[in-house]
């Protein structure tokens, strides 16, 4: 057994006996740097190498880590024995920033967390503030929220399809899925004025009503959405290389997934029909008809197929929203600066990656006292450590892509 010397040992070696090395002072500028903390139990286990094992860093600038993530891999030959994700390269301290911004300003901080599906980060925040301030949201605003966020769910899942295939080495699907995503993003930019970071939801409603540009683009897209989705499905689902590679890879069973706090498609791929839209209904979802697709296998292919089925359900929801959209205002009447009563509120929504939640504490001022942001990518990333041991190094990317983490949300 050989122990890798960590940073804890660096700079603390005994004075050298070598006469050619003359040290006037043992300590230099680094004396002011506090020592590294002692290693934890898990770190000791991870950084102790057995015979033939080695450590390799993947990232932080690795294209298939979907952002800036460093993964320390413990390898035996080409087989992954263990891994240790190192986070924090994208940490912006959003929770601290939000404590110093007023309630309306914090919504803008939510967007860059999940830059692929930013509406899903805004939604729990505004829901929590509405709970704190007892705001009733107009029904039309709720329908618009559902409509726009389901569109974004399709865009996010389409992008997932492309990424998934790209990480396995296929280039065509990402080009196809970007066509689909770009159409939706253009549509939403006609609605919100932004392409990615929409900043569209407001406390008590949404920023603007549906406009002609958006609706004409949406109608045009809806007329061929199903056909285009089917084409995307045919492209990958009938590709034998893709399917064989994904089947049986990165298996997690339902009990383990629940214990890992997994939510969203990653949990539903193990057979648990947990969807916040049905489990704890919010907005107008109780009035809408849709199914919760589940799979039993819990492998990469199941996670991929669950997302494909969700796209169909989202198209169904959009169709119902357009049919049942009521008339009326899209914003509740609120002062420009709100001071909710002191209290606590938790709100969660179902996003394309799982459950997004916000726990807001108000102390009666116009700024949140504490804002806790719960992001599913953060939770799902730690499942990689459970799935990877025993698989090959090249499968790390496939497993990680199948969990669909977004590093902006992981690092907050």
């Amino acid at each position: 057994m050989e122990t890798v010397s960590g940073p804890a040992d660096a700079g603390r070696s005994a004075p050298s006996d070598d006469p050619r090395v003359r040290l006037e002072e043992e300590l230099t500028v680094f004396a002011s740097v506090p020592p590294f903390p002692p290693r934890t139990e898990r770190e000791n286990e991870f950084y102790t190498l057995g015979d033939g094992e080695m450590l390799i860093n993947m990232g932080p600038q690795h294209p298939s880590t979907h952002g800036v993530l460093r993964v320390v891999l413990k390898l035996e030959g080409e087989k992954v024995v263990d891994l240790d994700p190192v986070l924090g390269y994208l940490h912006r301290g959003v929770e601290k920033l939000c404590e110093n911004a007023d309630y309306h300003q914090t919504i803008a901080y939510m967007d860059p967390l999940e830059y692929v599906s930013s509406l899903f980060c805004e939604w729990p925040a505004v829901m929590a503030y509405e709970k704190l301030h007892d705001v009733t949201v107009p029904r039309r605003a709720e329908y618009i929220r559902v409509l726009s966020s389901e569109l974004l769910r399709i865009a996010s899942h389409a992008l997932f399809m492309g990424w998934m295939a790209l990480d396995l080495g296929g280039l065509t699907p990402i080009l196809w899925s970007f066509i689909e995503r770009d159409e939706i993003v253009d549509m939403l930019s006609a609605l919100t004025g932004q392409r990615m970071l929409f900043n569209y939801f407001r406390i008590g409603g949404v920023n603007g009503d549906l406009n002609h540009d958006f609706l004409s683009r949406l109608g045009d897209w809806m007329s061929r959405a199903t056909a285009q989705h089917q084409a995307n499905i045919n492209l990958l689902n009938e590709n034998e290389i893709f399917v064989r590679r994904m089947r049986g890879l990165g298996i997690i069973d339902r009990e383990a997934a629940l214990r890992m706090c997994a939510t969203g498609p990653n949990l539903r791929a193990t057979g648990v029909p947990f969807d916040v839209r049905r489990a704890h209904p919010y907005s107008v979802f109780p009035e809408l008809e849709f199914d919760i697709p589940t799979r039993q296998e819990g492998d990469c292919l199941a996670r991929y197929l669950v997302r494909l089925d969700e796209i169909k359900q989202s198209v169904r929801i959009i169709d119902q929203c357009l049919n049942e959209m009521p008339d009326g205002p899209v914003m509740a009447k609120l002062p420009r600066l709100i001071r909710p009563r002191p209290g606590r509120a938790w709100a969660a929504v179902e996003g394309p990656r799982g459950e997004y939640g916000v726990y807001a504490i108000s102390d009666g001022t116009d700024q949140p006292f504490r804002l806790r942001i719960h992001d599913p990518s953060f939770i799902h990333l730690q499942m990689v450590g459970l799935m990877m041991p025993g698989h090959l190094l090249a499968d790390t990317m496939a497993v990680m892509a199948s969990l669909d983490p977004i590093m902006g949300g992981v690092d907050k």
Partner: protein
Amino acid sequence: MDTSLRRRLEARLGEHLVAPVAGRGDETEIRIAAGSVAAVLSTLHDDPDLRFRVLADLAGVDTGAHFQVVYHLWSDGSPDWLRVIVEPLARDDPRAPSATFLWKGAEWMEREAYDMFGIVFEGNRDLRRIYMPPDYTSFPLRKDFHLPDDASRSPAAGVRHMERPHAPADATVAARTRRSVGS
């Protein structure tokens, strides 16, 4: 608030609750002491009448006076979210039992709470910083964390952060002096 859930909670956890079961809207809230975390969470997770199988969130909170650990749980037996508040954790040595024996996925959330508040979760076998660098010494989300003070000890010493609410009274004097020193 779900009254049937409140009755079940009072029956099962009566002796552990340090405050009456509260709630508003679709949330039910209980408060417990740090000593009974393991017993309460196991009961909530395993009791056939409660079945809180989904840990929706784990958060650290600094109330200004002491710390809290807040769990949000979901069960198929109730339409409410259940919020479990563990308090008070002493400010100079905040310690709480880990929830990783029930939810392995709580490990990273506890690491985050440790990183941001310094709350030590006993039983978490990987309790180290997760966002901040390992040699970092402060706990950023504590209410007594003032960024300018900490920045003075960091490699970026002297950078005035946007968070500082007011410029110091002698800001213009300092700027002029610096310019003259530079030239």
